């Protein structure tokens, strides 16, 4: 087993208990998705106020809801097409909220350079999901590129907890740009028959 696989397996222990509790309480997965977004907005607020450790704690809580909604939907047999759409839209909302919190903070500090870094990282984070969604309307699968939502969220949390948000933003920006271009290139290759569709 790999190190990241082991960390994932360890994190699954408490999450399984939370999922079982939500199933027992019959909480609808769409409600969990919405609660996750509301908590993420609170995290964005904490980021905007330069309260990074608090933001990290709130983000951890928010992302528990974010992670378990799909699992609860499977366990309670309440998977719907609207639920998938709702989850996807709310994920974008949460992503953008966190970036907006940082953009507000850096603008308050008079740091136009980091306003631009955060804005560009936000732009390419949105494009990461958009390129995949559009690609998968014309090819079967487009799951290339490293910087997907889970990686971005973990980077936000590590940046907040260890007070290294600028470095985390640079990683998000560079790898989000490469992910978007990888998806464009992969789609082009697939449509030209160079990759098995």
């Amino acid at each position, binding site marked *: *087993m790999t190190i*990241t696989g082991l960390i994932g397996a360890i994190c699954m222990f408490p999450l399984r208990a939370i999922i079982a509790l939500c199933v027992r309480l019959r909480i609808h997965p769409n409600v969990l998705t919405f609660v996750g977004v509301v908590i993420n907005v609170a995290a964005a607020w904490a980021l905007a106020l330069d309260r*990074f450790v608090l933001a990290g704690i709130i983000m951890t809580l928010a992302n528990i809801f974010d992670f378990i909604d799909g699992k609860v939907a499977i366990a309670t047999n309440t998977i719907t097409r609207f639920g998938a759409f709702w989850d996807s839209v709310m994920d974008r909302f949460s992503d953008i909220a966190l970036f907006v919190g940082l953009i507000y903070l850096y603008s308050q500090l008079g740091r136009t350079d980091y306003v631009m870094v955060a804005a560009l990282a936000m732009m390419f984070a949105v494009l990461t999901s958009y390129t995949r969604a559009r690609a998968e309307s014309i090819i079967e699968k487009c799951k*290339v590129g490293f910087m997907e939502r889970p990686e971005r969220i973990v980077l936000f949390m590590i940046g907040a907890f260890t007070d290294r948000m*600028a470095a985390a933003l640079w*990683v998000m920006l560079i790898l989000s740009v*490469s992910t978007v271009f990888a998806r464009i290139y992969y789609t082009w290759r697939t449509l030209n028959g*160079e990759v098995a569709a």
Partner: protein
Amino acid sequence: MIPERDLPVPLRAVWHAFYWTFDRATWQYDVMVALILAFLWLTPPAWLGDPTASGPGLLGWLRQVLGR
């Protein structure tokens, strides 16, 4: 046309880092995560002009210790 096949090994590693096709929980993923964490924690915040970070970072701290 698969250009990465013709690249030398170090350049192919860079190619695969940016044109990422590996799953999570693979050794390639572990290496990528280690490189990202190294960048995050070793780079002195002053090098990036970090507006909020405090302290010199691990690398900056080591330079301070070795410079004494």
